[in-house]
């Protein structure tokens, strides 16, 4: 058994969220530099350049890259040998979010119908996973909702097939157009059930750009979809071009013989994601 003090978790996660708001991941910046070379549209090239300049400026000034510093989504993998001490772990994670957002924008309403701002950007959305060992791994996604709003889930029957799924992804991107702030990172979940397919799509957004799904048939789907998306012409910020998405990440789940669920979760061109291990 390993003891972890929840105060340490609060401090580390708070610091991670604060840092991630103004510091975009290197794999994304690298992908944007490549996209700058590949983009054919002069306006598209200028947009990518501007977003790279913005990222550098935000990092230097330690101010958020985007005013929408998002809703905090936390993925927590807890080793089953871990014992948390010093208080509740869930409360510590909410405190960490509150701490981090003291100087960031408060973008959360406590009730979707009454729409009163919670005032401290809580609650964070927390997904738990119990794993082997005595480690603690926490990944954070500070999700802007311009792109979240354009995301979709659909419960298809199996006959729709891979072609139908690809069409659904393309339709989602096409109708999002400029709204989701392209160049996008496209997270796709396929399989599972209504609840898990969305989570799979969101987890796909945690993957660094540049990799591919270890299953060859899924990796092939990722490559085909990326190519098809970039033929849509939407381009950076929807101002035309051949770079509408930087990556398509697909995660698959076992599902029922009667269904072929799919979720498409879009990430804007400001992926605030980070991971820590304690």
């Amino acid at each position, binding site marked *: 058994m390993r003891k972890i003090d929840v105060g340490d978790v609060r401090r580390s996660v708070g610091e991670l969220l604060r840092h991630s708001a103004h510091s975009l991941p290197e794999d994304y910046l690298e992908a944007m530099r490549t996209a700058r070379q590949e983009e*054919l549209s002069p306006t598209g090239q200028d947009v990518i350049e501007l977003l790279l300049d913005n990222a550098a400026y935000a990092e230097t000034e330690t101010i958020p*890259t*985007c*005013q929408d510093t998002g809703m905090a989504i936390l993925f927590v993998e807890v080793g089953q040998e871990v014992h948390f001490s010093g208080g509740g772990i869930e409360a510590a994670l909410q405190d960490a979010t509150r701490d981090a957002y003291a100087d960031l*924008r408060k973008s959360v309403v406590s009730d979707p119908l009454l729409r009163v701002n919670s005032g401290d950007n809580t609650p964070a959305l927390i997904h738990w996973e119990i794993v082997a060992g005595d480690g603690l791994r926490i990944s954070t996604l500070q999700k802007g909702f311009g792109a979240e709003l354009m995301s979709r889930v659909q419960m298809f029957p199996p006959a729709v097939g891979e072609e139908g799924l690809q069409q659904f992804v393309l339709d989602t991107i096409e109708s999002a157009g400029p709204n989701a702030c392209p160049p996008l990172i496209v997270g796709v979940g396929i399989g599972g059930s209504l609840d898990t397919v969305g989570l799979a799509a969101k987890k796909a957004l945690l993957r660094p750009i540049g990799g591919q799904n270890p299953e060859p048939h899924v990796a092939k789907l990722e490559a085909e979809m990326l190519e098809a998306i970039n033929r849509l012409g939407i381009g950076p910020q*929807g101002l035309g071009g051949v770079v509408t998405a930087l990556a398509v990440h697909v995660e698959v789940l076992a599902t029922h013989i009667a269904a072929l669920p799919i979720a498409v979760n879009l990430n804007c061109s400001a992926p605030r994601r980070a991971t820590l291990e304690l």
Partner: protein
Amino acid sequence: MARTVQAPLDEATVKSLQAGERVVMTGKIYAARDAAHKRLVAAMQRGEALPLPLAGQVIYYVGPAPAKPGSIIGPAGPTTSGRMDPYTLPLLERGVAGLIGKGSRSEEVKEALVRHRAVYFGAIGGASALLARQIRSSRILAYPDLLSEAVRELEVEEFPLIVINDCHGGDAYLAAREAYRSDGDGSQRSK
């Protein structure tokens, strides 16, 4: 170099702006997004006085991040304009001449831009830290309880924009997408 347009906008300027044109804006504009729009339109329906002028004015869909101590405003990029579509017609009817945001507008709004001679400008979403540097002053005019969604008066200087929908029916997003769309054989349809 992009030409400078002065806010508020006069009719000659509105008429001269063409979809796809890059401009920089200087002058006073007003920040309002979702919750503020809902309140403004409700206030108009009740016949109440509004906290901001409308005729010839420019509304920017933005909810800035908190300012760092010593700075004027925090990062302040555009939010998705389409969410404001249901509230936009009454504002255009009262003479609002410019809208700034990002993303597509409804057909209804695009038609109203032509009818009421107004322009929809796009700012670059996600370039928020840099855009904030072009804001010279910020003052909350109404609804401070809405936090980042409060109505603000902003003074901007050379704020970079692209004309998306002009008052002649032009649509920069549609034109640009068509220019770079390709059919799968690797070739572009035009351009």
